[in-house]
């Protein structure tokens, strides 16, 4: 029999650069989450981290920071790339009954790694794509053009996402980039890869993010406000960007797997909040469609309706999202941390006031949403 998995506590660094070195900062955030739960290293049964060597600049980086994740003489592992994978893997470990607690740590430092697109070019085929400069921003621009063309989504609607999220970030002390902008400000920023303007693209940020998971019984003992793991789904698309519809993608698959596990049949009604990974503003709209929060092609209307505002009926990215804070590897887990804080009622000034039961944390990596992960949490 598998146990229910609970999220006990969360901790995160601020998105701007830290004075600590990586090894120390990971330790501090890991310690913070254990302190919140009143636990010590003795109580950590297993540790799963997420990082990517091309981003840390250290090969086998988990060997370097192993000690920092309270993993000394523990059973542990690491996921490369999407940090929500590490959350899922740790949850799985608890479900087996082998472990009662698991520490999950997502690791990325934008202030230290090269330009994000210098790194994303390394995802491409070395023979036919990399020499032509294929990188995430270029493919995002392709995707945005198609999205506007096919569904009549306007540049203004896309820009509104940036206005909303960077505005929400004003209330988030962990956010890296925050400001009250107008749609014109967003559209008049540099056209870095037309149709994308600079302010519609995420910055590169620091993010050390820690989540403490526990078995059902242990969770109930450790926190008065448990948040529960309800379901998870992930999916990966075919490699070559020329082989697929850039507006198709694998998020629908990932979401339907997660909804099935969480026994959700009507996400429009049953999802109360979503933290969506939108490194490019228009992607929030497209991902909301694929997550089933609105109908196909209706992403523009969704933002126009105001429903995704922090005081709307389905708030999306009250944290400010990835546009405000983009530690590439840990950004998925950071979405989950925000969901947990919102469901616990601990989101401070940005707390959503609606009564919430079920929420989504979404992560994506690769070109135009090559790979997606969706976690459903509930109270």
């Amino acid at each position, binding site marked *: 029999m*598998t146990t229910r998995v609970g999220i006990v506590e969360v901790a995160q660094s601020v998105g701007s650069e830290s004075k600590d070195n990586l090894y120390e900062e990971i330790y501090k955030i890991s310690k913070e989450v254990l302190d919140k739960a009143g636990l010590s290293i003795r109580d950590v049964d297993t540790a799963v981290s997420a990082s*990517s*060597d*091309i981003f840390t*600049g*250290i*090969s*086998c980086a*988990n*060997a*370097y*920071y*192993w*000690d920092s994740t309270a*993993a*000394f*003489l*523990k*059973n*542990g*592992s*690491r*996921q*490369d*790339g*999407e940090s929500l*994978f590490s959350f*899922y*893997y740790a949850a*799985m*470990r608890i*479900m*087996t*009954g*082998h472990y009662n607690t698991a520490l999950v740590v997502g690791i990325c430092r934008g202030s230290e790694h090269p330009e994000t697109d210098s*790194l*994303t070019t*390394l*995802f*491409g*085929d*070395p023979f036919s794509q990399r020499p032509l400069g294929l990188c995430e921003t270029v493919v995002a621009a392709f995707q945005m053009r198609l999205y506007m063309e096919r569904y009549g989504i306007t540049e203004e609607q896309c820009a509104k996402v940036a206005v909303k999220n960077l505005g929400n970030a004003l209330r988030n002390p962990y956010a890296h980039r925050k400001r009250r902008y107008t749609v014109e400000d967003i559209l008049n920023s540099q056209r870095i890869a037309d149709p994308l303007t600079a302010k519609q693209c995420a910055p590169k940020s620091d993010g050390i993010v820690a989540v403490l998971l526990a078995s059902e019984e242990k969770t109930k003992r450790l926190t008065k406000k448990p948040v529960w793991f309800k379901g*998870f*789904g*992930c*999916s*990966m*698309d*075919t*490699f*070559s960007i020329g082989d697929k519809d850039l507006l198709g993608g*694998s998020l629908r*698959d*990932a979401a339907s*797997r997660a909804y099935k596990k969480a026994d959700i049949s009507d996400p429009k009604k049953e999802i109360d909040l979503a933290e969506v990974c939108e490194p490019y503003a228009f992607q929030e709209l497209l991902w909301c469609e694929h997550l089933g929060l609105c109908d196909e092609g209706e992403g523009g209307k969704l933002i126009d309706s105001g429903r995704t505002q922090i005081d709307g009926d389905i708030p999306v990215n009250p944290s400010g999202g990835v546009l405000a804070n983009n530690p590439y590897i840990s950004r998925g887990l950071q979405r989950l941390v925000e969901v947990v804080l919102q469901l616990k009622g601990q989101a401070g000034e940005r707390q959503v006031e609606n009564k919430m039961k079920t929420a989504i944390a979404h992560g994506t*990596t*690769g*070109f135009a949403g*090559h*790979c997606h992960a969706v976690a459903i949490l509930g109270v």
Partner: protein
Amino acid sequence: MGRPVAIIGTGQTKHGNRRDVSYPELVREAVKAAFEDSGITPKDIDGVVSGTMPSMMEGIGMTQFYLGDAMAAVGKPILKTETCGSTGMSIAHTAYYWVCSGEADMVLAVGHEKMREGESQAVMSSCFDPFYQKYFTSGAPGIFAMQCQDWATRYNIPEEKVRDAAALLSVINRDNALDNPYAHIKRKVTVEDVKKSPIISYPIRLLDVCPNSDGTCAVIFASEEKAKKIGTKAAWVKGVAYRGEEYNFGDGDKVEWQSAIQCAKQAYEQAGITHPRKELDLVEIYNPFTFQELLIFECFGFSERGKACDDILNGFYNRDGELPCDRSGGVLCTNPIGAAGLIRVAEAAMQVTGKAQDRQVEGARLALSHALGGVMQFNGLMILGSEL
């Protein structure tokens, strides 16, 4: 705990210098073989877990993207596990937990490396923290040499005896590789050849050291229900353990090597093993360096402390000895790093299911597979048995 998990099929590439194929093609060769071996198709798979050593080895970031099609992973849930040298074992563990938790019924695990496309020792020296240790180590052989010297001194083992035992271990592995169609280095050598080969990092000589290989290994894990339905002979996972220690090489005792000792303790408890020396039928140790394997024999309780040299010199670890080691020829003869740990698992699975052909250990029922990684930090084990 959790539900029983079986291995229902394995596939390997012909390992070695594989400039004849691209990286995705290399990966697909093993994946196809695993499907053929298990009799299932990609449609039956609920999840794919893959990994390599570091991204820097082949210069590809997040290899799951580039290699996804070759792993038949398109449209599938995926995970990507990387833990340095122990990656292959950690991939097997991920697949195990995925099935054991009930989140998936059948998982494809793929470990891959195309080491000959990069500069492996340069890549490995980018592993250590860039501020300090990077400059004091000479790639992997340097730190392994230090561990060996410490061990021999501690147990007062005469230098000549250690040398002879390590040389014999090299000979045993290389002889074993001659029976393995997938092995990279297939050349018969003598104890004298090993002892006369050029020094890499004293006392380690060229023939004490693994090669750089291109290769991929794929293993299919299944729930009890699925394994029984498919009906092929399955290897059952009896014990899964992993331990990691401090990154700073000087912090821990690498002779009373805690990550190895405690990892074995946990795996034996799960598998109900009290006398590993007697109960295990064979072992597949991750052995990039001969000397280190001798120490591991002791940490895992196969040999008494300070006695591994005597055991090997007395034939205990021979193919017809009481505990045959590395019947595949080991990492010493085949080393695509990200695959190497998973190859240990696959070889152990083949042995307990009687599929190991010319390298079959007669009557093998219980086998231990191992991998290590990090700056002498990580040890991982998977124990497989022929019965549920």
